[in-house]
Every structure is written in C-alpha cells, then in structure tokens.
C-alpha cells in the first residue's frame, strides 16, 4: 500500500456497553500496541468516517441515534462490532427488557471481535483486516 495515500478515518459509537471495550480501543490506538503501522486516524464525527466501531447491545433509547449515525458514514463503509458478549449477541445482558440488539439484526456488520472486553491486539488486527478490504474496494474501482 502506498504510504502517502489518505488515511482511513475511524469513528467510535457506544451503543450502551460497559465502556470497557472503548478503553481497550483507546489503549490499542495510543499505547504500545502501536497504531502507526495501520493507515488510520480517529475522527469525532461518523459523517467523516470510513470505518465505524460499535460496542454494546443497543437499547431502547439509543437505537434510533445509533442507526442514524451509522447511515451518516461515508460509502463504502465498514462496520466493526466489538465486545464478545454484548456487542455480538447481547451476551450477559440477554433477556433484559431494555436491549434492542444485537446490531447485526439491525445493520449489516463486516467484522466481529469477540471477548469481553476485546483485547487491544484484536482491535489492531481487526482494523488491519478492514483497511485491507477497503483498499481492495477502492483500487477495484
């Protein structure tokens, strides 16, 4: 891949998890797990993003907002769901009166990262896979 190519932008959406995965994502991107090797940067708005990271089981209150934010992302977009339990299958929160997920029943998901909470190494690996796929799609055009 060409180093000078524009960086892929990543945005993070918390769909109501415990916040553990988010902290691990931060740890993955800003500490020794070294994000420099991947061609990405974090952005504040889903409107600018190529890759969306979603955590949490989705609940009554945030469902509309989460779906709306996902729609805003640039095409072609990639959605990565992290959190072995709640992000992928509602996990430990399954059976609650307030959960409305998991996200893959509401939106098409490209990658799942299991374990509760996800490990920083896994976040980096997952982002690498998505960047590769995005590269393929862009170069194919």
């Amino acid at each position, binding site marked *: 891949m060409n180093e000078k190519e524009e960086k892929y932008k990543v945005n*993070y*959406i*918390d*769909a*109501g*998890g*415990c*916040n*553990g*995965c*988010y*902290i*691990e994502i*931060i*740890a993955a991107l*800003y*500490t*020794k797990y070294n994000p420099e090797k991947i061609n990405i940067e974090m952005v*504040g*708005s*889903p409107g600018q993003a190529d890759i969306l990271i979603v955590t*949490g*089981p989705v*609940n*009554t*209150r*945030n469902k*509309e*907002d989460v779906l709306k*934010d996902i729609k805003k992302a640039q095409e072609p977009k990639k959605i990565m769901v992290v959190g072995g*339990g*709640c992000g992928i299958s509602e996990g*430990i*929160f399954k*059976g*609650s*009166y*307030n*959960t409305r997920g998991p996200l893959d029943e509401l939106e098409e998901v490209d990658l799942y990262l299991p374990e*509760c*909470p996800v*490990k920083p190494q896994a976040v980096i690996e997952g982002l690498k896979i998505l960047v590769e796929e995005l590269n393929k799609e862009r170069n194919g055009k």
Partner: protein
Amino acid sequence: MHDTKIPLGAFHPLTKEPEQLKIYVKDKKVMDTEFFLGYNHRGIEKIAENRTYDKVLYLVERICGICSNAHNSAFSHAVEESAGLEANERAKKIRGIVAELERIQSHLLWLGTQSHYLEHDDLFKQAMTDRETSLDLLEKISGKRIHYGLAEFGGVKTDMNKETMKEIEKKTDVIEENAKDIYEEVMSRESYVDRLKGVAKLNKKKARELGVVGPVARASGIKMDNRKDNEYDAYPLVDFEVITDKKGDALARTEVRIKEIMESNRLINQFLEMPDQNPRGETEVTLEEKRTTAQIEAPRGENFHYLHAGERTPKRLSIRPPTYANFMALPEMTIGERIKNAPLAVISIDPCFSCADRALIVNTETQEEKLKDFHDIIEKNEKGER
C-alpha cells in the same frame, strides 16, 4: 432567561459515552445544565433477579469497564454479610491489591482524558503508558486486563506467588515515581494550572448539602473515605492517609487524584506482606431472606449495593454508583461559569455514565414519558436545532 441552548450528545467526541447534556447559555455564561440519561441503560438490576448469586457476581462487574472490581467486591460483601462468611487475611489483602491497582489505572485514565482535553497530549500519552503498567499487573494477577472476576464469597478466585509479588512491588514503585514526575510536570505548567484554577468551584458547605462523594468531596475539604470510615477488607490492618484539599476547584481534584495514586502504592506495599493461607472462598451460596448493604470506596467514590436476598437469586438488588452522587453537583459547579469551562467541570468529576445509567428507574408509566421525551429530542434534531 437564556439566549442560547447548546446540546452535547448523545454521541459526542468529548465524552465518548452516550448521554445528552443541554447547556443553557447567556452572554457566554452558563445559566443552567440539564442531563438526559438512558443511553447506556441495560436493566442490570432486573436481570440480576433472575440469576443465581455466582452469576450475578459477573453481571455486576459488567456495569462498568473501569471500576469493575468495585462492583464485584461490593456485591460479594453484601452476600457475605447475608451468609455470615468472612474472607481470611490473605484473601482480603489480595482484594486490596487489586482494588488499589484499579484505583491507579482509573485515576491515570482520568488524568489522560483531562490532559488530552487541555491539549497536553504528551501527558495523555505518559498517563496511558503508565496505566498499561498497572493493567499488566492486573493481567498477571487475575488473567484479564478488565473485568477481573476476582471475588468469591468469602475469598478470592486467584492466589499469587512470590514472583508475582516481587513484580508488583517493583512496578508499582515505577508507577509512583512516574506519578511524582507527572505531578511536578502538571504543577510547573502554567497553561495547565491556570486553566484549572478556580474552575468548577464547590465549597465544603455546598459539597455536604449535595452529598458528593469520593475525590470530589475530598477536594472540597470533606474527609470522607469508606476505606477509613467503613473499615472493610484489609484496610484496618494498614496505615494510610486520606488525601484532602481545601480549594474545591478542578485543580484541587487533579491534585487529590494524583496524590491518591502515590498513596495507593503505599497501600499495595503494605498489603504484600500476607500470611500463607488458602484464599479461596465459596462459589455457590444459598441464603435466607435478609436485607444487607455494602459500601465500597470505588475510584470515583462510594459505591453502594443494597441486597434483598432470596434463596438462590436476589429478590432485589439496588446499586448507587459514585457518579450518580457527583452528578448532582454539576449545576452548582457550572452555573455562572464561562461556557469554555463547562466541559472541564464535567471532566473534573470523572463521570462514568455506564455506571450511572444502570440506576435509571423504569416502570411502564415513566418509560412512556421518557420515550416521549426522546422522540421530542429527535424531532428537534431533524429540525436542525441540535
């Protein structure tokens, strides 16, 4: 009364966790702040009523990804009181070590967040690197970086060997040294100190009235700490100081938290001298109907668990995390402040919305009301008011 309304959220890069905040502003000064929670509500208290006690231990841990051990520990205390169990000294000290390591990583994460907001990104990086050291230790002890699953009823799940203890001793000293460096660095940077001085002030009298807890209360001069007042686990066996400050502003909260990191290291070193015992406890318990409570000093303040025990499952579990108490002080801290200081006030209480949202009370009536309110917000968004 106000001329501008600034909505923050539900998904905002400043706080990361979803919540809605409305700040009413006039002449660049904050007139009022309002919260809209529920974006993180998972109904944990209700789920707990259908699970056995050993499973609830892991469920309450998932309330929060930062202070998970505080919830785990508090729930095990509530069950232990109901069952009449007590952990031995070794188990208590292992719990203490994990609790203090958790406090260190939580405070460092907060320090990183604040530094990042104030655009001192080198301090953010340094805090996050130090935090990795404490996470490595936690992983070595429990096998996981977050959600350690440490407590059993009347004991702990894992023991530690001499090698691990030596590593803990060595690495916590490094963390303490680095904390000292960070403290000096923060205090020597005028741009950092000036930005925090006098911001989000909360005097002692108001702090008492509003019932704030943890570092926020201690920074307003109230000497409250459950580790001293409540004397749970191994804390009566060791010597430590409750860090307080009289200033009551965001700077005082920063100082208190950094000094607490150093104090935690002192505590861990004392906990490392432990007798040779089997720290394991019971995994499954059968209880009689009884009402018990537990108060634990989580990194952010008092974590309160109320348990109405049934035979195999809780009949009612009610939890009040520290953020809920500290929320109440936010209007007091922000009203009259300049708008640029409002986010600093929010950061200075170290809010954890995944903790607080769990405590939302939902019955059919209020839920309807909330949903109406929610659609109202969406409608306003669509009109471009947000």
